[in-house]
Structure formats: structure tokens, C-alpha cells
């Protein structure tokens, strides 16, 4: 890896600090070490390392096909990298199925909305609570005591999120009938319902108009601020990325070409070339 391209930030001691707007950033939560992911002959991710710190908003940017979504899929356990290590919460993560990764407290949204179209908004968000619902099938089948109580407790949590994201009126609407922007919001709600430590957002603002983008940006900041959730997001809108994020990773053709604060990245020569399309040697 070209060390000059990775700014100093990475090598700084990872001391806790407080951002200008008063949020606390802690130690490394997720550390990705030399990740390589191949599909047959195609190298989607080529020896990439970066970390995500407790409490920060980390953006991954890059042109189409740079391997950003693949990176998110590696973090959420959907793809298993051929090489490299994933460290989460100070421990090396063994190869595990995605549902186990989710149970460690990683939730995500998807680039092409992956809601459960046959269910209502409420039920969709309730699926985010599934890992908190432990009553056995006997109790559920007679719907007495614990099952009923558990349903109510989790429903309360979900209602808080519904209030937070201002989607009260569509609670009982089947998801299939919703417009695009609202679907994105419901998907965020489902991810939030899981009370994640790390929230992955794959293009949360793709295809939105300016107002919707503003709404979504506000929600992202609020989530980070109020719940202290660490967020890693992929986004194409540079303005949004620069405004929202604490640190940015830049990818191009499966490689990392920049890493640092928005200002550092903005002035990085290689990043500028990648975005302005200057030819690679």
C-alpha cells in the first residue's frame, strides 16, 4: 500500500477525543486487516486495511465498481474474504454466517432496498427485534404470558423508533405500497430496531431528492448523536459525505487510495485523479 496516500490519521495514537460538535470518539471498534476478496478471477477488494472507531461516522467512497458494497458485505459477513482478518470489539472474528454477525450487533441497510415486501411496516421493523425475542415455540403457540409480554415490550421499542423516524402514519401499511424514500426510511428503522453497535448504510440517499436527503442526513446524525451508534456508510453525494463523516476511506478498482478526514481526502492527489478521471499511468 502506498503509505503516502494514507494520511497520518491512521498512524496517530488512537486516543479518545471529542469532535467539534461535542461527540465522543473512542478506540477502534472494527479493524479490517489486509482484506482481499475474489470472485473467480475478478479481484473485488485488493489488500485493503482500515478501521472504524467507536462513535464515529465513517464513510466509504469511490467510483462505481470500486468494491465499496463488497466491503460492506465483508463487514456484515455476507462475503467471506479469501485473505485478511476482521477484528471486531478487540477480538479476531472467525468465519461466521451472516446471522451470527448480526447477533454481534452489526445491522445494515441495502443499496437496493431489501425490505420484506409482503409484510407491513410495523412487522418489518419488528423483524429487527427478532434477536431480542427469545420465548420458545410452546409459549408462542398458546400466546400466553411470556410471548405476549415479550411482544408488547418489543413493540414499545419499535414504537420509539417509529416516532424517532416520523413514520407513525404508515405503521400498518404493507411495505410494497410505499414510495421509495419512505422505504429507505423503514429500512433504516429496521436496522435501528436491532440496537446495533455498528450500523452499516449502503447508499442511504441514493435516488432521493434534496429534501429527502436533508431528512436522511438529519436522521443519521441524530442516530449517531442520541444512541451513540457507530456508523459506516457508502454514499455518492460528496457534499453529504463531507458534511456528515468524521473520516473517509476512498476506494478505486478494489484498492484503497485515500483515508483520512474529509479535508485530507479532498486534497489527496490520487483521489482527485480517480474522481476527475486522470488516466492511471
Amino acid at each position, binding site marked *: 500500500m502506498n503509505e503516502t496516500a494514507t494520511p497520518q490519521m491512521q498512524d496517530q495514537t488512537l486516543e479518545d477525543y471529542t469532535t467539534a460538535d461535542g461527540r465522543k470518539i473512542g478506540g477502534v471498534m472494527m479493524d479490517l486487516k489486509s482484506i482481499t476478496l475474489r470472485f473467480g478471477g475478478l479481484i473485488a477488494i485488493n489488500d485493503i486495511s482500515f478501521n472504524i472507531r467507536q462513535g464515529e461516522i465513517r464513510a466509504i467512497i469511490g467510483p462505481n465498481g470500486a468494491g465499496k458494497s463488497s466491503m460492506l458485505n465483508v463487514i456484515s459477513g455476507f462475503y467471506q474474504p479469501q485473505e485478511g482478518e476482521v477484528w471486531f470489539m478487540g477480538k479476531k472474528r472467525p468465519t461466521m454466517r451472516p446471522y451470527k454477525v448480526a447477533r454481534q450487533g452489526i445491522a445494515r441497510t441495502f443499496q437496493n432496498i431489501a425490505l420484506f415486501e409482503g409484510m407491513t411496516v410495523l412487522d418489518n421493523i419488528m423483524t429487527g427485534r427478532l434477536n431480542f425475542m427469545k420465548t420458545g415455540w410452546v409459549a408462542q403457540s398458546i400466546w400466553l404470558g411470556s410471548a405476549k409480554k415479550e411482544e408488547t415490550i418489543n413493540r414499545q421499542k419499535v414504537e420509539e423508533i417509529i416516532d424517532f423516524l416520523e413514520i407513525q402514519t404508515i405503521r400498518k401499511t404493507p411495505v410494497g405500497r410505499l414510495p421509495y424514500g419512505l422505504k429507505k426510511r423503514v429500512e433504516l428503522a429496521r*436496522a435501528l430496531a436491532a440496537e446495533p453497535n455498528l450500523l452499516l448504510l449502503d447508499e442511504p440517499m441514493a435516488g432521493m431528492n434534496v429534501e429527502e436527503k436533508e431528512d436522511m442526513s438529519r436522521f443519521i446524525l441524530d442516530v449517531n448523536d442520541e444512541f451513540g451508534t457507530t456508523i459506516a456508510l457508502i454514499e455518492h453525494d460528496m457534499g453529504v459525505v463531507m458534511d456528515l463523516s468524521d473520516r473517509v476511506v476512498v476506494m478505486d478498482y478494489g484498492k484503497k487510495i485515500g483515508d483520512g478526514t474529509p479535508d485530507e481526502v479532498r486534497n489527496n492527489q490520487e483521489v482527485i485523479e480517480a474522481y476527475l478521471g486522470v488516466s492511471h499511468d
Partner: protein
Amino acid sequence: MFYREAGDFKTSYAADNQTFPIAFDRYRYWVVLAIAFLVMPFIINDYWANALLIPFLIYAIAAIGLNILTGYCGQVSLGTGAFMAVGAYSCYKLMTAFPDVSILIHVVLAGGITAMVGAAFGLPSLRIKGFYLAVATLAAQFFLVWLFNKVPWFYNNSASGQISAPERFVFGVPVTGANTDAWAVYLVCLVFVTGSAIIARNMTRGSMGRKWMAIRDMDIAAEIIGVNPLRAKLSAFAVSSFFVGISGALFFSVYLGAVEVGEVFGINKSFLVLFMVIIGGLGSIFGSFAGAAFIVCLPVVLKLIGVDLFGWPPDLVAHFNLIIVGLLIMFFLIKEPHGLAQLWRVAKEKLRLWPFPH
């Protein structure tokens, strides 16, 4: 008393979450139950019980079972007939091995055994999806039927290769064998149907049901939000097979009394139950009842019209039955993939707003 939800405020999440949120529906549910339990047994007669009511109740259980697997969990099975056979043969073996135990317990145990067999055949569903899985379930259909035909242990070495139900009593009243009364058989089936529907409803509205539906709607996303796909699918296969097994056990023990496996539980039975689920409505417990009622009534009604009214030969009417069922399947898939249950919902929606259309 109008069909309204205005003024019927929900003050707790539990109240908002009940099966029939509208008061009128709740009253109707109790009225239907009261008639089914308290009135029907006194006015029932043999013909209507055997031609309509009892098959309807038994098929409704099978349809509920298949609906859990196909409608809620999205796994199409063409092996329902074979799983009914597992229920029937389990019940037969239990009845003959432990004659002193109540038949009601045997039926439930037969469901349990079928659940295990179903889960075993559900194992490939983790790797095989969509109609690949549908075809794979044909393996269960053909293999199990062959097994019950070829291994004499299953039919206690009877000369005919059939199984026939010995006489058993519930509270001193015969419910299987030659001397049963229609009302007793009817009540046994009704108890099982009611129990099955309540259990199915409870399972599908809680976290289990959401896991199933998540797998149905998008299995990859479901896994990424934390649903263990193997457990979700296997539990759907097991629960589904449990109901199917109960229905098979009842079909054999209290309804037919004697069964030749290839004839009764062949692939056509699998299709029949699948059709009930499609016509009734995928993913709806009420739909399972509607579909079962429809498929059970159709040949009877056609026979009334064709044979009794027009005097046509029965085979001609049977051809019409095939054509109409086929047409209806296509019609519902085109016009209303959610089946009769959706038509019912739409009607209720209209009624709720009546007389103002918006």
C-alpha cells in the same frame, strides 16, 4: 351494530395486536364457534357430514399446515400427500401398538412424528430453493408412498396391504371403526381444527411467523438481519408437517377408516391441498378454510348440477371439475394472488367505509 372501527380505541399494544381488532369480527368469531360446537352436532346428518363437513374440516388442517410452509415461509412443497400418509401410518401403528391410549393422543403424536419426518425432508431446503425445492419434495412424495407400500411392518402384514382403523372410543363414544356417529366424528375433527387454527395463528403473529415471512420475502436479507435460515426453514417444515400429519391421521382414522396409500395419499392429494392454499389465499389462516371449503364443495355442487339436475354421467362432470379447478387456479394467480382471503379483506375494507366510498 355496525361494522366500524371508529370509537373502538386501542389503549394498549396487546389490544392493538389481537387477532380480530374490530369488535364486530370478534363477536362473529364467537358466534361461529358457538354454532359449530353447540348447534351443528344436533342437526348434522350422515350425508352432509361425510360429503362436506368432515372432509372440509380435515382438509382445512392440511391447508393450514401447507399454508405455513408455502404461504408464510415461501417453500413450495409437492409432498403434502406423503406427509399425510406419514400421519396416517403413524396413527395406525400407534393405535395398534397401544390400544389403551386415547385416540386423541395418538393423533397428536402422529402429528409429532410427521413433524420429524417433514423436518428431515426439509433439510435440503437450505441449499435448494424455489421450484428446485418443489421438485425435490416430489422425492418425499414418491419415496414415502413406495415405502409404505413395500414394507409390511407399516401395515402390520395385512393381506390386502391396506391399513384399517380398529374401533376406538372417546368418552365411551365410538369415533373410529364401523359404528361411528356423524356428530361424534364431526366434533373430534372440529376440536382439532379449532386447536390447529389457534396455534397456527399464534405462531404466525409472533417472532416465529416474522422469521418465516422474512425468509419468504427475501431470504438473504433475512439472514443478514439475524435470522438463522436453517432453523427458520426447518421449524416451518416441522410445524407445517405437524398439522399435515394430524390431518392425515384424522383422514385415515375417523374419516375413511381404511386406506390404500397410493390411492389416497398420492401426488394428486398433494396438488389438491396446494390448490386449496392458492385459491384460499397464500399466507392466510382464514384462506386455508376458504380454500378447503371451496375445493371440497366444488365437486359436490357440480355433481348436484351435472348429475342430479342435467342427468349427465359422473365422469363427464369429473372432467368439468378438473377444468374448473384448473381455470380457477389460473384466474386467482392472475387476478388475486392472495386468493379468497384477499377478496374477503377487500370486501371488509369496503364495508368499513360504507356508505362513503373513500
